[in-house]
């Protein structure tokens, strides 16, 4: 057995492989295993149904946020249609489950694949557009998809929505909170692992090159358009996969949640978490989802307090205000997001009692 390394001490990298390694020391590797063990074996047993519901929601949001971060943070293509892509995934899974009667694993995977294709269609404008114009083209995608959700009644059920059957995996009913938690987090861990490895592969490096300067990247022989489309495809696959899980989780879907607000929520997640960082997208998802839960508590509490009952309608905007404030404050004071905060905290622990 090789000797485990726990304390980094200077930069002794000699090979390229050492530069792109995920864990600099075995300390990180050990912590990831401890974290996974806690997540799978402790969390589902100590948390009540409500906490479990919130954590599962965070897991699903984190998958979608990782996808968006690959597109925006790594490839530099701004997309305002991620919420609609999430919806496409949810609808695909729901339609497959109800009309075709396909099993859980197939519907969710197919949701990812179908959404990847839809995402690539909306990524086609990136052949000639950049920056702001692309941003608006995806905004158009968001509105067109929303329209399709409501109007294609024979397939999507219109405003009524679709009710899904209970999810089963290999004959086991997994629709209970705890078993669905495991399913979601196994998917989450797999998707994280794939994303982390993707961004340090040839493809991830090509994405980063396109983000930093697409003309130079093209000059160096990266087929720009193909990689941009690939990035759209991968990112929408993540969104659709998460959407499929979400459809099974809530058991009924309507067009209502998949609005521009959801798209912006995802962008807020990756900005607050940190652009161009996989762990950042997870932090961002945690932050935004918990913020949302806290705000709905506060709103509910304020509604139920006697003297404030008449003001109930004026307390609801609090949610929007605080949400906007969080985005603005993060952008001004910590534009690199929570991932940077986490890095600073970690390195100050490691370096203590020295400053650097």
């Amino acid at each position, binding site marked *: 057995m090789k000797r485990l390394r726990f304390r980094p001490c200077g930069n002794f990298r000699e090979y390229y492989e050492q530069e792109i390694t995920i864990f600099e020391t075995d300390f990180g590797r050990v912590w990831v295993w401890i974290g996974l063990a806690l997540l799978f074996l402790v969390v589902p047993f100590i948390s009540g149904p409500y906490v479990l519901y919130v954590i599962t929601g965070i897991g699903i949001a984190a998958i979608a946020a990782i996808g968006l971060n690959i597109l925006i943070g790594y490839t530099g293509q*701004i997309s305002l249609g991620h919420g609609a892509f999430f919806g496409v995934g949810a609808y695909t899974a729901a339609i497959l489950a109800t009309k075709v009667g396909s099993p859980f694993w197939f519907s969710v995977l197919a949701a990812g694949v179908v959404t990847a294709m839809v995402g690539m269609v909306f990524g086609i404008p990136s052949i*000639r557009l950049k920056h702001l114009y692309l941003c608006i083209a995806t905004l158009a995608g968001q509105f*067109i998809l929303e329209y399709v959700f409501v109007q294609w009644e024979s397939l999507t059920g219109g405003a009524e929505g679709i009710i899904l059957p209970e999810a089963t995996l290999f004959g086991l009913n997994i629709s209970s909170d705890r078993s669905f938690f495991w399913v979601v987090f196994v998917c989450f861990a797999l998707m994280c692992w794939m994303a982390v490895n993707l961004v340090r592969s040839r493809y991830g490096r090509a994405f980063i090159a396109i983000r930093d300067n697409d003309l130079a990247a093209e000059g160096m022989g990266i087929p720009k358009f193909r990689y941009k489309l690939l990035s759209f495809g991968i990112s929408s696959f993540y969104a659709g996969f998460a959407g499929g899980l979400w459809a099974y989780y809530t058991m009924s879907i309507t067009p209502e949640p998949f609005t521009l607000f959801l798209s912006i929520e995802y962008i807020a997640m990756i900005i607050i978490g940190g652009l161009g960082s996989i762990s950042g997208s997870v932090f961002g998802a945690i932050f935004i989802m918990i913020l949302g839960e806290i705000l709905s508590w506060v709103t509910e509490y304020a509604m139920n307090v006697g003297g404030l009952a008449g003001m109930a309608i004026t307390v609801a905007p609090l949610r*929007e*205000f605080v949400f*906007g*404030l969080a985005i*603005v404050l993060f*952008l*001004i004071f910590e534009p690199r997001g929570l991932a940077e905060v986490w890095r600073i905290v970690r390195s100050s622990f490691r370096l203590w009692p020295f400053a650097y």
Partner: protein
Amino acid sequence: MEYFIQLLVNGLSMGFLYALSALGFVMIFKSSSVLNFAHGELLSIGAFIFLVLAAWAKLPIVVCFLITLMGCFTLGFIIERLFLRPLIGEALIEVIMLTVGLSFMFKGLMLFVFGGNIFDYPAFLPEALSIKWGAVTIPSVYVSAIIIGLIFLGVFGFFFKYSSQGIYMRSVADHQPAALSLGVHVRRVFALSWAIAAVVCAMSGIVLGIMQGINVHDLSAMGLKVFPVVILGGLDSIGGAILGGLIIGLLETFTGGYISTSLREVIPYIVLVLILLIKPYGLFGSVEIERV
């Protein structure tokens, strides 16, 4: 035939309103290359300041106008100073997201104060402004919108072409570092452009408010309507904004009148995607040529 003409007139008037509300948007983009997602909220802030002054404080209309415009001018300065200045030189997505955050903040604040109700201004436009032509009538609101739009178009055309501040703005939008190194006061240009844009927004917010009542949700939704308009015309062209507004207005009214009312809301976006595929910089937008 009469139906067609009425639709045509409605479409053109709607289009002028869109064009008017797109002007402030183009102002900001032209001078600082910032895509302003808080546009609809700026419209409603102007409209609500005017409402407070005109309907609740019952000041004379001219005084209301002056105070609203001055207030919005200051507000534009404050927004730039507090929120945008720290982000000078940051990546595009961060600036865009900042305006998204601002839009949520403003919307939340306005819902706090005014709630989701619809308010009305006291009637103050003279009826003489309305135009009757055969069976077709154009209400005075639309006429005043057209007049205001034309005035702004002329003033901004001259401003950007001949005044020194206007030329500074164009130079800053073109290439910030070059403008800085040639001695253009970039920060002042930004602040001024936000201030002017807030004033334009207030004007269009008031006109919209007269037409459809003042409601936070409706006015902020107008901010999203602006995107197809400005993209169609080209993000940095004022004439393009007017033409884009007219095209979108006509398109919407005719789709609503002849095809289906539900398609009305998305047709601008469908056309937008098609236009972007054929002519990526809109009808009049300046083509960016990149060299490495």
